[in-house]
């Protein structure tokens, strides 16, 4: 059994010790988990979406379970970037976490301002631009559902930061690859996808929505097959590294995304089910690499073999 397995992956200039990143909104600010897991052993932590200012978010109920998935409409409750920098970043730095800050604005200027503030901070590894949260009315997804909006936010942020810029794409569009292309054109270093699918659930006895926000975002294993397809499409459309996510809960799921084209992955909902998921994932990846004689995990990215399908001997 090889002992020198290499789990590291590169997202442009950013190197992660392994491809498992905690997804934004699914790991708090990271510090909540500091006693439970070794933050430095994760590939990275995408912290909960931050606005310039504090936000209360939506009233409960904020989540509801659905078949193999969950809806959430948290509404980006959060402490705002200033308190984050003061209260959370020092501890994350001390724990040697690779911190990807997920930022969210209601206007283009807010994204730029957030990027400016965070670029001055030690301990921020990258910026993930949340232009895809389905749960808030202003900003966010209005940029993420428009090619020009996506281009504008990415290039606006690009201008003021030398940190890696990673726009996070929404799956609620007809052609996700075109958004990856817009991001690439605007100077992004990578793209991450998918954010949640806009969805809803109804209590049939009261005939009322089961979320206070009426609609929310669907995440979890239920969405994985759609997310894998979208990663595959993006991989073919752009040269940028793609960070894949959506329903990852096992090492096989990580590999599915990587083989489809992801350079790294994020794990969201599965952290709720099991805060130690990432250790199970890493153990499973080690096992896979050993079984298949793979020394460098990064080699797996984008290796989907469709030769047999493409020359299907029966025309269809």
């Amino acid at each position, binding site marked *: 059994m090889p002992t020198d397995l290499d789990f590291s992956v590169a997202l442009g200039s950013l190197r992660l010790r392994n491809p498992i990143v905690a997804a934004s909104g699914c790991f*708090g600010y990271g510090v909540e988990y500091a006693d439970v897991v070794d933050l430095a052993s994760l590939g990275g932590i995408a912290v909960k979406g931050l606005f310039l200012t504090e936000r209360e*978010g939506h009233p*409960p*109920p904020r*989540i509801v379970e659905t078949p193999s998935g969950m809806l959430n409409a948290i509404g980006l409750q959060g402490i705002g970037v200033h308190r984050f920098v003061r209260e959370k970043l020092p501890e994350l730095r001390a724990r040697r976490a690779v911190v990807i800050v997920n930022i969210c604005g209601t206007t283009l200027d807010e994204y730029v301002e957030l990027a400016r503030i965070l670029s001055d901070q030690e301990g921020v590894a990258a910026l993930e631009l949340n232009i895809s949260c389905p749960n808030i009315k202003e900003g966010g997804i209005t940029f993420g559902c428009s090619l020009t909006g996506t281009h504008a936010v990415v290039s606006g942020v690009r201008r003021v930061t030398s940190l890696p810029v990673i726009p996070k794409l929404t799956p609620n569009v007809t052609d996700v690859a075109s958004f990856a292309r817009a991001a690439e054109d605007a100077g992004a270093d990578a793209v991450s996808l998918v954010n949640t699918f806009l969805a809803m659930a109804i209590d049939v006895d009261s005939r009322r929505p089961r979320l206070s926000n009426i609609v929310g975002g669907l995440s979890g294993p*239920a969405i994985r097959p759609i997310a894998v397809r979208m990663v595959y499409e993006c991989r073919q459309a752009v040269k940028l590294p793609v960070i894949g996510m959506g329903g990852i809960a096992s090492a096989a799921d990580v590999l599915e995304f990587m083989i489809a084209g992801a350079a790294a992955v994020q794990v969201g909902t599965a952290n709720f*089910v*099991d805060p130690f998921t990432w250790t199970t994932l890493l153990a499973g990846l080690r096992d896979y690499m050993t079984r298949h004689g793979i020394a460098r995990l990064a080699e797996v990215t984008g290796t989907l073999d469709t030769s047999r399908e493409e020359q299907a001997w029966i025309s269809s």
Partner: protein
Amino acid sequence: MPVDIDAAVMANTRLSDDYNVLALAAPALAAGARPGQFVMIKPSRSTDPLLRRPFSIFQVLRDAGVASGFSILNKRVGTGTGLLYDVEPGARLACLGPLGRPFEPPDTSSEAWMVAGGVGLAPFLTLAEALAARGTKTTLFYGARRESELYFVDEFERLGVTTVLTTEDGSRGIRGLVTGPLDTALRHRRDPEPLSLYVCGPTPMMRAVARLADAHRRPCTVSLEQVMGCGLGGCYSCVVLTRDPGRPPHFVRSCLEGPVFDAGRIVWDALAH
């Protein structure tokens, strides 16, 4: 520090068609548990149901004095609790805990009144044990729909707890809601005698008790049952609107700052149900 244990089901005692007590082998988890804390349990290995469910630690089980596991008092209300009602001994369930802020014991001079509605009894057996150990005079006001749904009354009495029972149909104790005798008792209680209330049950009941406690100026602690996605502060699903000095009402995570709250902090009108 919470631990995650793949705990074997040691026993499943069905009390009725809806209630059961599940004994789980989890020494490390049980050893650290304090009254009022909870455990996140995964009811199935499948992805449907997906999330864990929160349960109060009902009993800490001991083997020759050493914590060997814990039990939960489970009420079947849906998919997850239904699976936990059906589960057979030998099966394993992932249990993460202990979690949450425990009950604060009252001042040594104070009496403790526990007020439980239905499955809201769950957090009080461990509290009663702790109070008995420190010699606190304790009363349990306990209401259910009918006699057959009043459980473990003997266990509380064995710990020296005075019990005041109510049933909605009058089949045992006082007919009506638990707030009836509680109100009477509060009225008869002389002012200088210190007293702390602890409440767990349906939201309307907790709200009513909180109002009574406020009217009688008695400290009151509630154990809330918000929907919880993770139990660790990661998801922000479990929030409760609270009033704290010097700032407008704001949401706090009940898995971290609760489930036990000072009743006066809660903005009751904002609570669902």
